[in-house]
């Protein structure tokens, strides 16, 4: 099977769905690039080249470069979705949600409910998140907990190239607004990705490792770190199950509970700020439903509660590391006695 990067997987998912369904359109800042300027068409393909090549194939009518006004084009995408198109809008960095949040949570997220189920909103918002790109505090956050909190939205955080393609196709075919998170340091990560179209259902967690001693629930890029730790500790006789929830809304509560009931120990790894993040949510879930299964206190591995630092050394220290995850796993094992 061919190896493809996370970037290629996303590009391929967009192209395949645009070929399959003429109502799928793309809009965002520089998704093609060059519009209205002296520059070359398709000069950009998005700031990191993810949508490169789509404009030449599908044309300016379906690949819409927008003004730098998130409130306008995210709102336009929500309206287009309500009237029958399947827009995929690109919110370049999720950090910009502040200027278009009303269109997302108070409009798109509520249409289905406020119109008695008569309106659907098949909108996808693709957005970059995460630290490690040396892009400073206004371009490095993990704001998926904000969207997870809001009813009416589905929140998808793929952990690899294979996952990204299947989850994005599912997102485009879904009739509800989906916020699709792409970690910006993962775009060059490669793995085997089928050429064919395929879908991965929402709300179905993936077990990327299986072991008997500790359950590690990890989100997005953190799944890779958790896998590294699980592989390392297997040699040391500590078996880890790694749970990738794939979507935080809906959340596959059953799989998480079942894994904790089997291992009796839980470490949650979340790159989002620690107050009211996905880790605290899952910790609360397990405390409520599987408390008696726990052999040790739950450990959460998160950044500190600060903006993402710009100094490279501090940024590296900020991001949850495999070393910190390993320390947490060893600590819940030590608490056994």
């Amino acid at each position, binding site marked *: 099977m061919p190896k493809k990067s996370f970037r290629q997987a996303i590009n391929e998912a967009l192209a395949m769905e645009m070929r399959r369904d003429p109502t799928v359109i793309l809009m965002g800042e520089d998704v093609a690039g060059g519009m209205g300027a002296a520059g070359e068409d398709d000069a950009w393909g998005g700031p990191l080249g993810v949508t490169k090549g789509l404009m030449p194939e599908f044309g300016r009518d379906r690949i819409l470069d927008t003004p730098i006004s998130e409130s306008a084009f995210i709102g336009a995408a929500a309206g287009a979705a309500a009237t029958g198109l399947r827009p995929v809008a690109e919110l370049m960095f999720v950090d910009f949600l502040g200027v278009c949040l009303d269109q997302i949570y108070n409009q798109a997220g509520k249409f289905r409910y406020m119109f008695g189920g008569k309106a659907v909103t098949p909108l996808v918002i693709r957005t970059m998140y995460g630290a490690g790109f040396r892009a400073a505090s206004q371009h490095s956050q993990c704001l998926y907990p904000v969207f997870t909190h809001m009813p009416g939205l589905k929140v998808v955080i793929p952990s690899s190239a294979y996952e990204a393609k299947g989850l994005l196709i599912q997102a485009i075919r879904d009739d509800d607004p989906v916020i699709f998170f792409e970690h910006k340091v993962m775009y060059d990560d490669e793995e085997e990705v089928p050429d064919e179209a*395929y*879908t991965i259902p929402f709300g179905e967690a993936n077990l990327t490792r*299986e072991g008997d001693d500790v359950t590690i629930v990890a989100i997005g890029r953190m799944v890779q770190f958790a896998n590294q730790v699980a592989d390392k500790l297997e040699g040391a006789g500590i078996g880890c199950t790694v749970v990738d929830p794939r979507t935080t809304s809906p959340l596959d509560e059953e799989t998480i509970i079942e894994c904790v009931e089997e291992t009796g120990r839980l470490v949650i790894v979340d790159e989002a700020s620690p107050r009211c993040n996905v880790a605290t949510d899952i910790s609360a879930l397990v405390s409520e439903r599987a408390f008696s299964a726990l052999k040790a206190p739950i450990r959460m591995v998160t950044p500190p509660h600060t903006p993402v630092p710009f100094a490279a050394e501090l940024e590296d220290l900020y991001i949850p590391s495999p070393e910190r995850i390993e320390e947490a796993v060893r600590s819940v094992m030590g608490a056994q006695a």
Partner: protein
Amino acid sequence: MSEAAIQAITMPKWGLAMEEGKVSAWMAEEGAAIAGGEEILEIETTKITNVFESPVAGVLRRRVVVEGETVPVGALIGVAAGAEIPDADIEAFITDFQANFVVEASDAAAAPEAETITVAGRQLSHLRMGPEDGPPVVLVHGFGGDLNGWLFNQPVLAEDHSVYALDLPGHGRAEKNVAGLDVAGLAALLADYMEAVGIGAAHLVGHSLGGAVTLKLAIDQPARVSRLTLLSPAGLGEELNVAYVKGFAGAEGRKEIKSLLQQLFADPQLVSRDMINEVQKYKRLDGVTAALNALADAVFPGGRQGLVMRDQLATLAMPVQAIWGRDDAIVPPAHGEGLPDNVTLHWLERTGHMPHMEAAGDVNRLIAG
């Protein structure tokens, strides 16, 4: 004995995707005499655990890899030699092998890859291994299977055969349109495939539904079939485990798929995470569920096998053998009872519906023999 009598036992490559294997158990002691073909190891791959039969005969002088250790394909796992060879020579052999091993590992990237091929307007996928001028063998998978299911057979048979494995429509990397295909249609397509790749007649090996397909071809176009091996074949009786077929066609969740796959083996422990993952990845492809349902309706209408060819077996002029696991829970082993005299029947104990995986060594010998 000469120096050449020091022989390396190396990690085998079972299937295209295998890059490393774990020695889960040694079954032979250091110093013990081992025969070629003797089961000396259990090797766990990400896909399945299987016994490894010694490719060499002699005394097992060293277990180079300890139980629980994972090493890449081609790595030295043990050394066999005559008892009279001095230990120092064995040590030198190991040192030499390890020093040169890196070079071999880099060749692993050149492993053969399946290719797409268009046959009678349908896009199939296939893989050929072995010497081009070797006697041709064609491996045909069953319902829901694919060419990777022959991972323990194709490389072994390819030592002295030209071995073809293909994905039928709706399966593996083949197109997912199965419109108009039933057992007869698949048999005709198989003949077209053989024509397309330039095989006149071949030893056909069919598993389950693939067994019915190869049998149908042997009946319709006997000139295409020099020999026929039927593994837990469909086509010899009306009954089959229709709950499995429908369950497999509709299954989505991991647990559902796991419990279905476990029905295929006498030892359900053989179903690994990766096996489940691969089935799940296949089932997520656009069109697969529809293809499996359509195919099930066409070949198993009303939950019965639509084409029973039992009465025609006796008319076949080529050598025919059937291999059946006693614990087959999908196609009833009773269908193997009372076959005509021209069919050689081999029962495999403690084996389920996948004899080519669960008892690969026996099946390979029977196919090659």
